[in-house]
């Protein structure tokens, strides 16, 4: 009996017991809300890597969806000629994109996104803003979209804007 006790590994000198406060039981705190804004450094929150669309692109997609619903009444769950659920908000947005899309021809919208996609340094948001706002001068673009200021020099930006103007339908 004594023999066995000697062979057994010595228990390490036990550390004085540490008393910890019980785990706090409380509601989890809401995540700190960071200010989401478009400034020199755009903070988009949960829209960070979501594809942004310019007004013209949005108009192109919406028109295509509505045209398809109209063309295939059998697969349109709203039935018949209805292309949306007649809510006031949708009507307001349809008017909005119709008024403010600078590029209404399908080919021009495609050419525009091709042109903007060739500039890898621009983010989705900057491309969308450039496409929506249709600026005339590099200074105007940099004032309205502050995050552009450090990304492109004025000459490159100006030539991009000139290219974009050529694709534009006359506004108004």
């Amino acid at each position, binding site marked *: 009996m004594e023999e066995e006790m000697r062979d057994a590994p010595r228990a390490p000198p036990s550390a004085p017991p540490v008393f910890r406060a019980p785990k706090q039981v409380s509601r989890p705190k809401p995540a700190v809300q960071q200010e989401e804004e478009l400034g020199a450094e755009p903070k988009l929150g949960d829209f960070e890597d979501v594809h*942004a*669309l310019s007004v013209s692109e949005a108009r192109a997609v919406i028109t295509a*969806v509505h045209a398809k619903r109209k063309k295939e009444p059998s697969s349109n769950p709203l039935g018949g000629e209805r292309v949306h659920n007649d809510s006031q908000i949708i009507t307001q947005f349809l008017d909005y994109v119709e008024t403010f899309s600078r590029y209404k021809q399908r080919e021009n919208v495609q050419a525009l996104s091709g042109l903007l996609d060739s500039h890898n340094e621009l983010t989705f948001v900057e491309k969308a803003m450039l496409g929506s706002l249709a600026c005339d001068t590099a200074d*105007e673009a940099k004032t309205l979209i502050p995050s552009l200021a450090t990304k492109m020099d004025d000459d490159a930006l100006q030539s991009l804007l000139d290219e974009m103007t050529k694709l534009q339908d006359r506004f108004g």
Partner: protein
Amino acid sequence: MFFFKELEKTIQLHPSYFGPLIRSHIHRELLTKEEGSSTGKFTIVCILDNFEISDGQVMAGSGSAEYTVHYKAIVWRPYKGEVVDGVVTSVMRSGFFVDCGSLQAFVGRNMIPGEIKFDANATPPQWTDNGDQIIEKNTNIRIKLMGLRSEVDKMYAIGTMKEDYLGPLQQ
């Protein structure tokens, strides 16, 4: 600004809809309930026609089935500091209101450049600098959003015109 966003929605379906047309019922439910709705952060403008439906699960106690629908939609989300175009809807001495889609923005007197003055005698009333800048009802205008407030199903904003390159758009 518009975004192309993937979203999810749980739809409950009454047992009377169970049958071969179930997909179409879910689609209709999705379009009528979700299109045009606002979550407080963004507004869903248009839902694309291809969407995925999970396997349905019958809920205990009611017999209704619950489906999770995964879809893509065009949503519109305004940001603080964003430059947007809008249409003037009403003009007052204290400022004017601008509609950007479903967002209503107010531009107060302090947010309008000093040289643009209110002219109550004109019909309709307008803000003008007696030059080519005239702000009246239905003017297309470019403003910058300074602050946003969202309520259930509706968003409101405060805008400014007191910076370079903002103001009425040349027709």
